């Protein structure tokens, strides 16, 4: 199980794509990528989770860090494509509403 991360920027707006399994093994790498992303102070970040198969509490913590970091800078975070097991976890933790997942 592993995850891969890509940041694609269009018209100055970064989209973070997360694929695979975001867990205790891969979350530290994502946290580093998040730090790099936050350093650019983007006004809005889209996180595409349509290719995310699994997430655990470590992965959730990394995304919460991203959310808090962007909000602290006055920016906005949009998550899209959440499905299956990750969606169930977000709902259980009541983060679906925080992250604007419908």
């Amino acid at each position, binding site marked *: *199980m592993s995850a891969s991360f890509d940041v694609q920027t269009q018209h100055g707006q970064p989209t973070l794509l997360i694929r*695979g*399994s975001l*867990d*205790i093994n891969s979350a530290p790498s994502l946290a580093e990528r998040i730090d790099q992303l936050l350093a650019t102070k983007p006004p809005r970040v889209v996180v595409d989770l349509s290719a995310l*198969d*699994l997430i*655990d*509490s*470590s992965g*959730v*913590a990394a995304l*919460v*860090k991203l*959310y*808090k970091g962007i909000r602290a800078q006055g920016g906005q975070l949009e998550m899209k494509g959440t*499905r*299956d*097991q990750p969606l*169930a*976890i977000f709902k*259980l*933790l*009541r*983060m679906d509403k*925080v992250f604007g997942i419908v």
Partner: protein
Amino acid sequence: MRFVAEACRLVSGARVFDEHTGAFEVNHPFDTAFVSAFMEIFNNVALHAYRGAGSGDIELVASVSPTALTVELRDAGVAFNIDAIPVPELDALPEGGMGIHIARTMLDEMKYLPGPPNLWRLTKRLTVATTPEVSQSA
């Protein structure tokens, strides 16, 4: 994870792990719940019971019936008092302390018996609430 994925498939009938792509397809409610809980408990043992140990063994035993799955994990790490673990304040958007809460909520039964060896017993039953047909129509 493949061990648990196969055990889940024996109960839910849904394929959880694709051997060709190596991807997990966890979309059946039963599989979602059990895989989520197992990941948290396995990580808990690795992170906390074996903290500082470098490495350690985790013995897994699965008991499968047509309507339920029980997985036991035994480890020789440091024991802890599970009753002392607080329920996370979800409204505060915690960045930790969610694992036990996830596992407990996802399972029908979760027992922890301090050792040595420490024993986790995770049980999930295939009920009306965990059949996809009912979940989708609810």
